[in-house]
């Protein structure tokens, strides 16, 4: 009974593996959960691909550049600065 419980603690199914990925990506998993997840990923191409796709989302989100600044807005803010300095 105890052995079965221990085995269940060791092996992850895909649903559990996915549930740990958010904390894994934040480096916030406990040592034992991290090892269980990495053990699962070694043998599961589906979960490995899923995690890789989440990493792509993070990477491409970091490439989303803000809009260009227009001259009119910049001029308005410089005027704001000058008013503040003179006031």
């Amino acid at each position: 009974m105890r052995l079965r419980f221990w085995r269940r603690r060791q092996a992850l199914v895909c649903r559990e593996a996915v549930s740990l990925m958010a904390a894994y990506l934040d480096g916030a998993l406990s040592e034992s959960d991290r090892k269980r997840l990495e053990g699962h990923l070694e043998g599961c191409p589906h979960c490995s691909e899923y995690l890789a796709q989440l990493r792509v989302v993070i990477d491409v989100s970091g490439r989303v550049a803000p809009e260009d600044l227009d001259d009119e807005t910049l001029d308005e803010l410089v005027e704001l600065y000058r008013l503040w300095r003179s006031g």
Partner: protein
Amino acid sequence: MVAATSRQRIGVRCLAVADDRALVARLQAGDEAAFVELVRMYQTRLQRLAESVVSSRSVAEEVVQDTWLAVLKGVERFEGRSTFKTWLFHILLNRARTAAGREHRAPPLAAEDLGERFDSSGAWASPPVPWSEEAEDRLVAQHLADRVRELLPELPAAQREVLLLRDLEGVSAPDVCELLGVSDGNQRVLLHRARVHLRQKLDLEMHS
């Protein structure tokens, strides 16, 4: 390649923090050029963040202008205990929430709601189709980034705020918790939901 670009981005962000410190010191000394430089760096990012909180573009513009005024009033007292960026975002989010007439409240979250489908044994009902390696191509990655920009407005506000701060602006998890007044667990679930939503949309993009 993804890991390498992430490391490069972290390096760029460290340089940005150093640049900010120098600019803030110049602004404290009354240097207009430093103010212009900070506006160039942050104005449209502030506008993007404000628009994630308030619905109207013009109200967001007022919020951003009000934020710059608060920076000018408060910069002499800014001691650098947080980064300038975090301080700036804190001012903006407070004003944006006041303008939106709501306090930030994280919705109750069920961490087990993963947004993906599994069978009764916990295995994938429909395993992900591989495309992550294709996204290592710079042009493909840029195309996906353009899609993410288009998809941002359809995310629920709470998810969009966390995603903007964490993944677009590179703000740390503890700073996001403080800025948004949410627990570490909640910010992580909101962020994960946003990423899962975007992954599903990019998945469709990669299949088409």
